[in-house]
C-alpha cells in the first residue's frame, strides 16, 4: 500500500495554528462552489503527502473555490488546492495552500479548522455560460481558470470529499479532518481549462495539474462542522486517528 513520503517537519513550516476547536457548526449562505479535478504526474504522487495519508492513482489535485455572500465573517471568496488522498479507507483531499479574499475569514478558517490561508485577491466570477476563477497576490497571477459550456447535473451527482489540513493544534501537529459540506440546490458540470497555475504558490513546484478531468459549479449553502477527528501525520489513520473532545 502506498503512503506519503513527505518530510512532516518541512510540511509543518507552512501549517496554520488552531488555538481552540470550534464548538458549533458554521453555515455559509448564498454560496457558489467551484470544484475542479486535474490529474498530476507521478513525481507528485506520494512525495507531497505525509506518511499518514495515501495517494490516489493517478495522483490528482482538486481546486475548490467558494464564493460566499453570507457568513459570520462577512462575504468572502476562498480558493484552496487539495491533493486527492486516502486517510485509512476514507477519501480525502489534503490542503496544500489556500488564498482568501477576506482577512477576517482567513483568520477564522485558519484558527478553527487549520486552513493554510493567505490573504489575496481570490475571485470566482460566474456568468450565464461559465465562470472564471482567478487568484492574484500583488501583481502575481497565482491561478487562472476558465470554465465554459455548463451542463446541468442533479444536486446529488457531485461528491465532495472532506479536507485534511495540517495544523498545529491543542493535540500537537495534526492532520485536521475538515467536514465542509456544500449542500447544492443546483449543479452544473463545465469544461474547464487551467490557464495559469503558479505551483510554488500552491505548495510545491511539483504540483502540475496537466490533465483536467472535470469541473462543477454548485449553488447553495456550505456547512462547516466542528472538528471531530484529527490524525497524526506520521502514521497511518488506522493507528493515528484521535477523537477531538
Amino acid at each position, binding site marked *: *500500500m*502506498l503512503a506519503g513520503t513527505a518530510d512532516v517537519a518541512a510540511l509543518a513550516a507552512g501549517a496554520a495554528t488552531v488555538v481552540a476547536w470550534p464548538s458549533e457548526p458554521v453555515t455559509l449562505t448564498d454560496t457558489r462552489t467551484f470544484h475542479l*479535478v486535474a*490529474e498530476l504526474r507521478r513525481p507528485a504522487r506520494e512525495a507531497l503527502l505525509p506518511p499518514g495519508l*495515501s495517494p*490516489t*492513482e*493517478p495522483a*490528482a489535485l482538486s481546486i475548490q473555490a467558494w464564493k460566499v455572500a453570507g457568513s459570520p465573517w462577512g462575504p468572502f471568496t476562498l480558493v484552496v488546492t487539495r491533493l*486527492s488522498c*486516502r486517510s*485509512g*479507507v*476514507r*477519501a480525502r483531499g489534503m490542503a496544500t495552500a489556500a488564498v482568501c479574499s477576506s482577512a477576517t475569514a482567513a483568520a477564522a478558517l485558519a484558527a478553527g479548522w487549520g486552513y493554510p490561508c493567505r490573504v489575496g485577491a481570490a475571485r470566482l466570477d460566474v456568468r450565464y455560460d461559465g465562470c472564471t476563477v482567478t487568484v492574484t497576490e500583488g501583481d502575481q497571477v497565482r491561478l487562472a481558470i476558465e470554465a465554459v459550456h455548463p451542463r446541468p*447535473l*442533479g444536486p*446529488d*451527482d*457531485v*461528491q465532495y*470529499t472532506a479536507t485534511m489540513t495540517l495544523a498545529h493544534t491543542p493535540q500537537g501537529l495534526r492532520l485536521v479532518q475538515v467536514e465542509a459540506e456544500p449542500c447544492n440546490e443546483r*449543479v452544473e*458540470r463545465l469544461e474547464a481549462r487551467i490557464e495559469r497555475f503558479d505551483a510554488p504558490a500552491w505548495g510545491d513546484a511539483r504540483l502540475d495539474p496537466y490533465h483536467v*478531468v*472535470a469541473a*462543477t459549479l454548485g449553488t447553495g449553502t456550505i456547512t462547516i462542522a466542528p472538528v471531530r477527528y484529527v490524525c497524526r501525520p506520521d502514521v497511518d489513520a488506522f493507528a493515528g486517528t484521535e477523537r477531538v473532545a
Partner: protein
Amino acid sequence: MKFGIFFELSVPRPFTKAGEYRVYTDALEQCRVADEVGFDHVWAVEHHFLEEYSHCSAPEVFLTAVAAQTRRIRVGHGAVVCVPEMNNPIRVAERAAALDLVSGGRLELGTARSSTWTELGGFGADPDQTKATWDEFIRVIPRFWTEEAVEWRGGCLSMPERNVLPKPLQVPHPPLWVTVTSPGTELDAAERGLGCLGVSAVSYAEQERRTAEYHRRIQSCEPVSSVVNDQVHTQNYLFCHEDAAVAARVGLAMVARFNTLNAHLYWTREAYPTWAYHALGNIGQALRQASGDDPSAAKGLPEGVGIGDPDHLVRVIERWDSMGVAGINFVLDTAGAIPHEMVLDSLRLFAREVMPRFRTREQLAAPVEAPTRLPDGVRGPSGFAVVR
C-alpha cells in the same frame, strides 16, 4: 449451491517481475486444485492500471491457461468491460467464443462497465455513456454468437453485415451475467434475463431483499437472447481452517487488505461528477458486524463472511442458501496476505468438510449445471487433453 473462486490477481509491492509471475502461477495452481476438489467456477476480472489491487488486464489469456489445465470447472470471463474504448464488442464475442471452444463449452461471460476513473480516464472513455454502451454490448454479443449475418447500427458500434467467427460451443451460447455493485443493477440484470453476479458484500437482509426482487422481476423479463440465466451468485472471502481462531486471524487480515486496497481506488464519481455513477458499493464497504444470534458474532467476524472453521462455514452458507443465492464466488487471497500453501489447504479443507453438506458425490462427478447445453455428439471438457 455452487462454489466458485474469484481472482483479481492482486500483486503486493514492491513490484518485481518474479512477484507478478508468482501471483499468476500460484493462481493457476489454485485453479487446478479447485477443479480437482469440486469447485464449480473460476472467475477472473478485467481491470486496468490498478496497481497492487488487480494486475488482471488480460483475463482471457489467464482463463485460457485455466481451461487448458482443468477438466470440470467452468471458466468465468468476468467481467468484460463493455466500454468500446476498452473492448470492441466484435472482439469480445470472438475471444469469448474461442475460449468456449478451447474450454470444451465451459465459458460463462460476465459483463460490466468499470467503476474507477483510473480505468475509464486511462482509456479516454466517457463515464456518462457506459451504461448505454453496456446495454448495447449485451444485446449484440448474443447475436454475433448465434447468427450468421449481423448488421448493426447502434450507439457505439456500427457495422455492415458480417459473420462473426468462431461461434461458441455451447447451445445456444454461453450464459451471460452482469456484475452488480450498485443497488439496482440487479434489476437491470433481471429485466434482460441475465445472471446476477454480485461483487459486493451486503448484509443478509439486503441480499435477501435483492434476491427476491431479482427473481420476481426476471419472471417478466425481456431477455436479450434465447437464454435466460436466472441465477444469483454473490462474492465472498474464503479462509477455512480447523482452528477458528487461526481462521479469523489469517482470514481477517486478507479482508482488511482487500478493503484497504479497494478503498484506495480512485472511483469515477470522485473525479468526474455524473449521473451515471452514484453508489460506490464494493465488497468492503458493506460488511456488517454480526449481531444477535448470528454465530459470526461470537467469533468476532463480520456477518456472512466465509471465514472460520468448517462447521461455522456450513452455517454461514446455509444462511445464504436459504435466501435463494445459487452460488458463492470466493476471494482466496489479496496481495499475498495469505501464503499460497495455506490457500491450498483452505480450499482442500473446505471441499472435504463443507462442500459435501451441500452436494452429493454424484453431483460432484457430473458436469457443472448451466442453462445451456453442449451440441449433440460433443463430449465436452473431458474430450480435451488436460495438462497436469
